């Protein structure tokens, strides 16, 4: 069984600041993918960033980067220079190789304050 835990139900930061969202997970597999998805209010969920477990280098996508600590089973998301459009629910997710099931964490509601 695989589990994903997000311990921060809500966070808020001032616009232009940097914020880090936490995620820990557990899986018995050695090969898996980790994701951060963003769900803005009343809009569809979109992928923010993806990390392959076999890659040591942390994934980055413009203002979004991750801190992947495989031994600690930690996968945090850092948002730099936060913008009002970053206000959304953020879900951390995990998929094992050979398994179509994407397991989500409980989510972190992020609010960017003008």
């Amino acid at each position, binding site marked *: 069984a695989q589990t994903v835990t997000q311990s921060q139900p809500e966070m808020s930061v001032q616009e232009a600041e940097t914020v880090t969202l936490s995620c820990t997970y557990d899986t018995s597999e050695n090969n898996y993918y980790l994701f951060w998805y963003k769900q803005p209010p009343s809009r569809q*969920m*979109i*992928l923010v960033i993806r990390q392959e477990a076999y890659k040591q280098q942390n994934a980055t996508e413009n203002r979004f980067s991750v801190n992947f600590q495989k031994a600690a089973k930690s996968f945090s998301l850092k948002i730099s220079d936060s913008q009002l459009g970053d206000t959304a629910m953020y879900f951390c997710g995990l998929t094992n*190789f050979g398994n*179509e099931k*994407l397991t*989500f964490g409980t*989510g972190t509601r992020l609010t960017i304050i003008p």
Partner: protein
Amino acid sequence: DTEVTQTPKHLVMGMTNKKSLKCEQHMGHRAMYWYKQKAKKPPELMFVYSYEKLSINESVPSRFSPECPNSSLLNLHLHALQPEDSALYLCASSQDHDRLTEMNTGELFFGEGSRLTVL
């Protein structure tokens, strides 16, 4: 703009009604998914279709009946639902699905969802 289109966006039905949710994608994706999302909760996987065949059924009650007429379409037929079935129903598709290894390695593309209310 979403490339996964779900209809209707809103649906209100009684417990004795029969209705259907529809999902369509034209990205050539070969895996399609139904998720159920309650307010302030993460999406919960219901069904996965891979190459038009049902590959995952997460022990969903039979009052939910999925159908995949072709690789672009995914339906969810609803019958005799309960008020607790009220939720946002999300459809998703994925491209990076290897037929031999059955690995889902890629991004899920979600629709905007169908908000269902059961009275």
